[in-house]
């Protein structure tokens, strides 16, 4: 009897030790105390997390007994299935990050985006923003999202030293750009570098081109599935991609390397131009602090049907979950997140917040130029992946990568992409 008990006791001890180890060291997250505000977003790096932690600290100080829980995920996962999982999980977020456009519309339709018109106005949150800041997040007269940042997702960054050495100035037309490319290539430098392993990079760049050639309304119709992908307008636009391939103006490794590796080719001077968004300013600060870089918007295309000054960009923001019981607290949290003081902090870290800042000098000049570009009044075009249905974007972006490598003709690639969209 004695043996048996001591053995049982030991077993229980051993197992509970293992379990205790796991529980205490792994944050068990299923607290159901109702004084937790849950905020979900895709990881934006250590700097962003630092700022969020400051905001949470302030929020906790202002609201005794409340805590903030950040539900942070890898950004690619968050964009695809991660957010969906969070919203349907046992502890759904009260506030979550989202892109304006088709994705916001879907969230409203699915019942996950609260109408916060009155809350925004009465709480004083509206005062943190300029007039008209809520335009892209207001649908049918109801505010559905608090804007966080506006980002230009595609301009062409260039290495000023290389351009100066070769006597090139920033081109304004596509023909001038091709001319510059040929000079750069003759000098033994790759004109463009992109890291397109995840497909969105080239999709973003050429999505902009497509909207210029086909016209922004046709672009919107096609990506919204109201017109087939292999419409002649897109086939024509895709020919520009094929021509870049034939001329050898894009790094041959494009489809095999990641976005960061693509940036790196540019930072190391192995490529002269990099078509990407405003966030590269932050990357450049750490990876190429001494590099002198400039930018020009995608050059005008002769005979293109769209606004030849159009800007590709997205507005992001935070949605208050319609299923949340803590909407007041959520708005209060967002108020502290976008106070003039915090906006200055966001700006200093290289973000481009929409809310007003108390300190306009905080912005990096390059980042400031991006903000000015956004406010220039040109047509705003949404990138395929964040602006439209993801499967649609995948089909188009795969077709672009095939043409970029020259394995398919524009017509064939788009025919195949259209077939893919139809069967799904």
């Amino acid at each position: 009897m004695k043996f048996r008990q001591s053995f049982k006791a030991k077993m229980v001890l051993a197992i509970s030790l293992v379990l205790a180890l796991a529980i205490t060291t792994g944050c068990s997250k299923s607290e159901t105390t109702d004084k937790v505000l849950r905020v979900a977003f895709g990881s934006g790096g250590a700097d962003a997390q630092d700022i969020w932690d400051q905001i949470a600290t302030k929020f906790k100080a202002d609201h005794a007994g409340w805590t903030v829980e950040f539900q942070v995920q890898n950004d690619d996962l968050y964009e695809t299935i991660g957010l969906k999982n969070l919203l349907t999980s046992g502890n759904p977020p009260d506030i979550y990050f989202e892109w304006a456009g088709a994705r916001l519309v879907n969230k409203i339709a699915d019942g996950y985006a609260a109408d916060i018109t009155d809350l925004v106005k009465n709480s004083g949150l509206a005062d943190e923003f300029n007039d008209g800041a809520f335009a892209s997040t207001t649908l049918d007269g109801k505010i559905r999202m608090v804007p966080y940042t506006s980002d230009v997702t595609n301009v062409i960054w260039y290495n000023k030293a290389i351009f100066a050495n070769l006597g090139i100035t920033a081109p304004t037309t596509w023909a001038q750009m091709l001319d510059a490319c040929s000079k750069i290539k003759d000098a033994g430098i790759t004109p463009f570098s992109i890291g397109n392993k995840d497909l969105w990079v080239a999709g973003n760049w050429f999505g902009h081109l497509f909207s210029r050639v086909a016209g922004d309304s046709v672009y919107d119709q096609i990506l919204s599935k109201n017109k087939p992908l292999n419409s002649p307008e897109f086939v024509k636009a895709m020919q520009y991609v094929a021509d870049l391939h034939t001329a050898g103006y894009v790094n041959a490794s494009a489809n095999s390397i990641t976005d960061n590796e693509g940036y790196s080719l540019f930072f190391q001077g192995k490529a002269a131009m990099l078509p990407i968004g405003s966030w590269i300013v932050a990357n450049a600060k750490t990876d190429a602090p001494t590099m002198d870089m400039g930018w020009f918007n995608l050059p005008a295309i002769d005979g293109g049907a769209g606004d030849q000054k159009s800007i590709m960009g997205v507005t992001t923001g935070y949605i208050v979950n319609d299923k949340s019981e803590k909407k007041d607290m959520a708005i209060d949290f967002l108020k502290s997140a976008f106070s003039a003081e915090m906006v200055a902090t966001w700006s200093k870290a290289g973000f481009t917040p929409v809310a007003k800042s108390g300190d306009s000098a905080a912005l990096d000049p390059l980042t400031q130029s991006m903000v000015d570009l956004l406010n220039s009044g040109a047509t705003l075009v949404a990138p395929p992946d964040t602006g439209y249905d993801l499967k649609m974007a995948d089909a188009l972006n795969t077709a672009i990568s095939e043409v970029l490598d020259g394995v398919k003709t524009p017509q064939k690639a788009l025919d195949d992409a259209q077939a893919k969209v139809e069967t799904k």
Partner: protein
Amino acid sequence: MKPTSRLGVFILVAPAVLIYCFAVILPFIGTIALSFLRWNGFGSPTWAGLGNYSRALSDSIFRSTFSHVAIYIVATLILEVLLGLALAGFISSLKHSAFYRIALFVPVMLPMVVIAVLWRAIFNSDYGILNAILASLGLTKFQHIWLGDTKTALFAICFVSGWVFSGFYMAIFTAALNRLPTDVIESARLDGSGEMSIFTKIKIPMIRQVTSVAILICITGGLQGFDLFYVLTDGGPYHTTEVPTTFMVKSVFRDGEFGYGSALSIIVSVAGLAMAYLFNLWQKRTRVDVEY
């Protein structure tokens, strides 16, 4: 024996059964059920019947994953099993072979992701060591964008796989060869047979059993391969290295098609089981004819 007490049996068996059923059996049944539904992860699922299955069979990308995985399996049968057998043959005929046995097995010990990240650095066409070696040998015309070129990407993955697992099969075969009774081999040697013919005519038939298990592991393991593909190419460029697992993970965790993904997973699992079963049948049938 009869158990001394019912409670005793319960205490012994219940923990394993509970954990296993919770994390394997229940989800397995759930996945089968889900494969007959259409569900995007939101809201309530709708009945799809065999819709997901018929869609899978007509999905050209999914079908192509089987030819990619078939190429991979054939290549690894050569680069892993056959090479492993040859290495084992050589090694078991040497006296001082401890170093080789240890060295060749080292890659097997490392996480596949670590290996894949390392080889991605080797294959990188801009900074990678492989192109640099070719350049230093004056072989610039053999330089490639190894993982970005449809002609080389799949082969590069097979190559890495061979680099890892040839040592694994070598270990299996070495163990089998060392267990063989020495008398048969000695008498063959006395009859004047050469080492090569002893190896091919006597030793290999005697370890037939082990060989067939090795082939089976290679086939079923190949069908489940994920880590290397995910890290090295993630199915790219344009789905030319897409294998069933990477495609399945994309369908579920990128496109949010839970029902469809489940149907794919059931198809792949059944295909694996069927291959294992057929292989066993074939092996049983042929064994009689070959047995000495």
